[in-house]
């Protein structure tokens, strides 16, 4: 087997005080100075650490981030002076898709490179919208690797980007007659979008490219000056110069009427080029995807908005587009249209928009994508709070534009290391040893609507309200 893919994580502490979930409310003025202070006995030494930090005054001095919520101090204080609450600032972070818990979990993974672990069962809602209406399957007694998921006989997360011939033709002497198109293999099914926020300095895009290089993957960039980076996939707008693709193994074009011709031209001077065509998910996506695939596209990159929803087109005089379809449904539609057209196996599908957690990478693949592209999680790795100050031209609370290379790359590497480990856990449980085999493998997913219909339908009848 090829050498095992390994992501080198190491602790990368945050630069700024992270916003923690829990807080102890402390009414010091009533303290009876009984000297039996329960705070000293905090199992996690949160209060001692706070005191030490206050004395040194060199690091963040807030135990909000550290409190584990065991409530031992609250319940043991002699006078019952302590109380506990969820930090309102925490609850204000993000929105209904990029929830505080998702942001916080990605912060933890970026800091430690570790898989988030906790006890006492799953605390969340029964099901949710989008990806949270899908479960993944497990195999009860059979598992593919004989050596554990991290063992010598490993689970591969590699995927291929490029057009694949459906059959090989051989010459009389047994040599391959088919002119095989170029193909690139990357070790994780994740690309990066190198410039998600507009108002940041160019340095962050460079760090994202450096991270992609370290991980062996690529980053899509629309900055011409970064196109020469070895991990860069230049994005070429409808009116931009196709010369950006020269000498590159991969380049991305915005979809346009003449995109296939432009790509054909570019390939004349760069025969090893793999072309990606970027088009939006939406009502016409499946039809257009089939058309592009049939006319010779190598790779299709379908994107939703950053919340993972397709946005219906704006009509003149209307307000912002309304959310329509979640990306998990949109991916399946395009995938199935390509399958129906008999061309699915020939082309590669990249999906992007709203992918926030490693489980969503796996679920995107199960729905039919070959790989995904992410952006916002990379910003979260750099401590972004999704406050949108940058878009309002206000000060960034975590000074994103001032991060240095070592910190930024390590944080993003850590995040991907943790995501990779979690993908292995899910694939191992499913009994799937190859990320390539996840694609469209809906039989290894369980959809809540199906479960309701199959398990509850015979008992309760017709489901009234679909969440």
């Amino acid at each position: 087997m090829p050498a095992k893919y390994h992501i080198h994580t190491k602790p990368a502490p945050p630069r700024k005080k992270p916003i923690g979930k829990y807080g102890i409310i402390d009414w010091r003025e009533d303290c009876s100075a009984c000297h039996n202070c329960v705070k000293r006995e905090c199992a996690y030494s949160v209060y001692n650490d706070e005191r030490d930090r206050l004395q040194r005054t060199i690091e963040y001095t807030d135990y909000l981030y550290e409190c584990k919520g065991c409530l031992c101090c609250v319940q043991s204080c002699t006078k019952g002076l302590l109380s506990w609450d969820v930090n309102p600032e925490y609850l204000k972070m993000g929105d209904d898709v990029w929830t505080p818990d998702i942001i916080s979990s990605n912060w933890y993974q970026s800091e430690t490179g570790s898989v988030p672990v906790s006890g006492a069962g799953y605390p969340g809602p029964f099901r949710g919208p989008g990806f949270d209406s899908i479960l993944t399957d497990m195999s009860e007694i059979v598992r593919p690797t004989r050596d554990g998921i991290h063992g010598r006989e490993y689970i591969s997360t590699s995927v291929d980007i490029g057009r694949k011939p459906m059959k090989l033709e051989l010459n009389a002497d047994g040599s391959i007659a088919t002119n095989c198109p170029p193909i690139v293999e990357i070790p994780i099914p994740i690309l990066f979008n190198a410039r998600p926020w507009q108002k940041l300095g160019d340095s962050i895009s460079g760090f994202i490219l450096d991270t992609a290089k370290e991980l062996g993957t690529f980053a899509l960039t629309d900055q011409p000056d970064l196109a020469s980076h070895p991990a860069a996939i230049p994005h070429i707008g409808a009116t931009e110069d196709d010369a950006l693709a020269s000498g590159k193994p991969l380049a991305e074009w915005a979809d346009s009427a003449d995109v296939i011709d432009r790509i054909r031209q570019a390939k004349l001077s760069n025969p090893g080029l793999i072309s990606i065509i970027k088009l939006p998910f939406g009502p016409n996506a499946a039809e257009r995807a089939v058309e592009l695939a049939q006319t010779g596209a190598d790779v299709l990159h379908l994107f939703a908005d950053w919340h993972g929803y397709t946005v219906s087109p704006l009509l003149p005089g209307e307000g912002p587009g309304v959310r329509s379809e979640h990306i998990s449904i949109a991916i399946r539609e395009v995938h199935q249209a390509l399958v129906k057209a008999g061309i699915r196996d020939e082309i590669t599908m990249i999906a992007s928009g709203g992918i926030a957690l490693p489980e969503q990478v796996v679920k995107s693949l199960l729905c039919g994508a070959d790989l995904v592209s992410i952006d916002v999680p990379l910003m979260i790795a750099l401590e972004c709070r999704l406050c949108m100050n940058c878009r309002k031209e206000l000060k960034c609370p975590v000074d994103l534009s001032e991060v240095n290379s070592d910190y930024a790359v390590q944080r993003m590497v850590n995040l991907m290391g943790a995501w990779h480990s979690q993908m292995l856990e899910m694939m191992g449980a499913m009994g799937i040893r190859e990320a390539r085999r996840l694609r469209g493998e809906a039989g290894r997913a369980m959809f809540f609507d199906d479960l309701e219909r199959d398990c509850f339908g015979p008992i309760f009848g017709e489901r009234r309200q679909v969440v």
Partner: protein
Amino acid sequence: MASIVDPHRRLGPVSEMGLETPVREAKPAPDRFRNSLGKYQLYRSEDCAKCGTCVVTCSRGVNVRPEGYVDFVRGLDWRCTAEICKANGTYCVDKCPQKALRIEETPIYKSIGDYRWTADLILSAWHMAETGTVPDGELNYQTGASGGGFDRIELVFPDNGARTDPAEISTSIPLNRRGDNRPKVTIDIPVYGGGMSFGSVSPVTILSKARAATAWNTFSCTGEGGYIERLIPYKDHMITQVATGLFGVREETIQMAPIVEFKYAQGAKPGLGGHLLGDKNTSAVAAMREAVAGTSLFSPFPFHSVYSIEDHKKHVDWIKHVNPRALVSAKVSTPNDVDMVAVGSYYAGAHIVHLDGSYGGTGAAPDIAKKNIAMPIEYAIPKVARFLTDEGIRDHVTLIVSGGIRTAYDMAKAIALGADGVVIGTAEMVSLGCIRCGRCESGVGCARGIATTDPGMVSKMTVEWGTQRLINMHTAWREQLVDILSRFGMRDVKELRGRTDLLRHLDYE
């Protein structure tokens, strides 16, 4: 034969511990923390004339003025049931002539708990464990707020008012339905305790569970961490678990067990192996597991000797040969083909098929596994029950379910969906004072002294107290189950099994 290594021998055998035989009787077992948590907080202003009206008004003893004293001492606020008092005219705030009292919801009440275990469920579980009685309606002690499954399913009681006499109602279930020559084991309540290993939880927790199970003539389970010697007096109520790491599995621990449970998978981490982090692997734990202290201990997934139902049969035969009197249980998780797995387990010779749904579990597990892998138990129960019935073997196997059974109402709904009985884990932990902070795995483990092996932390709880809390919990659960059966006009919990016609799902027509 090797003797059982007991790292806790220094604590002495049970007879020296001064422990009395556990008795099935509810007794007060108050919170072991100084400040109990509750829904309300009482504020008394300086206008208080110390007339004592509030003391007389309150039936819960919230306002406290010791005999012979003029001033009040800190109230027992957590007992307050303001809404009920308002409704029946015994609200101290209204009765106070000086208008000096104020009652507000505590910030704690608004912030503890989660979708599955709401603040109401945690506080009502504590109430049951403390008193052995059912909470009186101030708290929702029946459902959580997950928005699906048990939380959207209701029991539909007939409105004819006819009830059976609670004294005539049986809640016992048989565990051996195979009709073979093995013991006809029955348990007095349709619930037993889930496996939690020595290492994952403290010996105090393990013993409390075992003693409560003994008092209620039901079972507790060793989990995969070995059989501590202090459990031997309760061996008739202990299930020996055989899991993939085979930690602590010995010939004699199989021979002394009335039930041996194969853990193929668990709901907390379906498809993943067990994992005890190094910090919790103390020398005592390591000795029991024949491992090196301080190292992280993994149980692989799956059994590397089992790749088919035929291999599973080989396992079952092995146990049956080593212990000719043991019943065999197969604990599996809930994949798409759980129905096929259940039928296969039966044909391989299992007496009990134990399904562990994906949202439950007590063990530390990757968040990604808890949330995403395998299906919730609510779906698996009817799916499996239907398949067993179609196969014609429903009455020859005992279907036990777990993974998200939080309340007596969940238990009743699970049985009505088609299970024979349930296994609980988190509900026991909450009864012992768990606040569900989820930090069972970090450092030395649980700060509240339940899921830890650190000697300092373990001493936060005693076996007597833990036993009584769990006996109380079962008392309150049985009372609710009997009430449910009585309202259905039933005399036996076995009549409730599979009665899906008595259930209504709020999201369905």
